[in-house]
């Protein structure tokens, strides 16, 4: 996770507004620093970091809103919208590897169950040739240890999460472009009295 950049020049004995402007200017810049990397859906870490940057900015706008004359609610809502979309994308990015790990875990359990069964059978080898009934019991016990029936559901879930991720990412890119087209950043900076310089 990207650490927040330090904010220079704060004076705790001055009023909130001039200090808030300095903090917010840095956090807005942090969000827009990701502008160049969001075009690649494979930038999982960068999208996660952008989500964190949006979250920081949103919370700060909420905290400092009281010290500004303009109503910041519409800006907070827009940032929250982006943050929510990025959060849903992040959920998919976390869940898909977890589900893949679960498939590997199922395989491990199957192997372990089969190994224990074979060991038990080997220990009884000196009891003579296995009967037909003993073979059927072995087969039955082997089937009990199989987790094949569980795979279908997990595979289906992985497929659904991947499709969901694609849709969410497309929506996020549309939102990001819309906000740029609507000059979100300069409008927000103007509302906060930040000199875009």
């Amino acid at each position, binding site marked *: 996770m990207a650490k927040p950049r330090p904010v220079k020049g704060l004076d705790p004995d001055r009023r909130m507004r001039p200090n808030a402007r300095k903090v917010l200017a840095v956090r807005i810049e942090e969000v827009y620093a990701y502008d160049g990397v969001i075009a690649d859906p494979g930038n999982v870490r960068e999208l996660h970091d952008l989500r964190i940057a949006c979250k*920081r900015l949103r919370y*700060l706008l909420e905290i400092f809103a009281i010290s500004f004359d303009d109503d910041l609610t519409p800006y907070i809502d827009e940032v929250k919208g982006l943050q929510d979309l990025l959060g849903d994308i992040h959920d998919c990015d976390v869940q898909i590897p977890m589900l893949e790990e679960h498939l590997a875990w199922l395989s491990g359990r199957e192997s372990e169950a089969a190994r224990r069964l074979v060991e038990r059978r080997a220990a009884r080898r000196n009891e003579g040739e296995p009967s037909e009934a003993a073979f059927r019991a072995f087969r039955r016990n082997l089937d009990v240890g199989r987790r094949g029936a569980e795979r279908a*559901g997990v595979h289906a*879930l992985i497929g659904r999460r991947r499709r969901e991720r694609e849709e969410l990412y497309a929506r996020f890119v549309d939102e990001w472009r819309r906000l740029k087209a609507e000059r979100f950043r300069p409008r927000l900076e103007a509302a906060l009295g930040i000199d875009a310089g």
Partner: protein
Amino acid sequence: MAKAWEVPGLAGDARFREAAGRVILTRWAEMMSYRDGTLLGEDIEELHSMRVSSRRLRAAMDAFEGAFPAKSFRPLLRQVKEITDVLGDARDLDVAIERLGGALADTPPDERPGIEGLVARYRADRAAETPQIEALFADLEHDAFEAHLDRYMAKHTGIRLADLKPKPPQD
């Protein structure tokens, strides 16, 4: 989601330092109001509300970091981050169990064993989180963290919990 508590006495033209004390201590009280419900573990919304409040507290501490000496403030931030992280692990599992369980009715029969198996595994993982949460609160108590935070805020902002008296929203 739990509503954020009003910050008592916070004015738009407050000094940065004073605002820091008021906001941080209010968010602390808000977060700790969910402690008992979280420990009880009967309603997953209690833990969720506590986690949301811990995030608000962290955000407030990030926002007002400049009002405090960096060296002494950093351990307080780390402690709050730990609270968020511990609660976050449990919350992620609560959400996964609830979502998967809720979707079971609409899941085709051949996919159900997989989802049921996954829910069972997440339930076991979630049960293992409870002792971590209990240990976290025990550490906070053992270290008298609240008293330490209160003294620290009084020293650097002039605001004390006993004077601030933050209260949950009335609705």
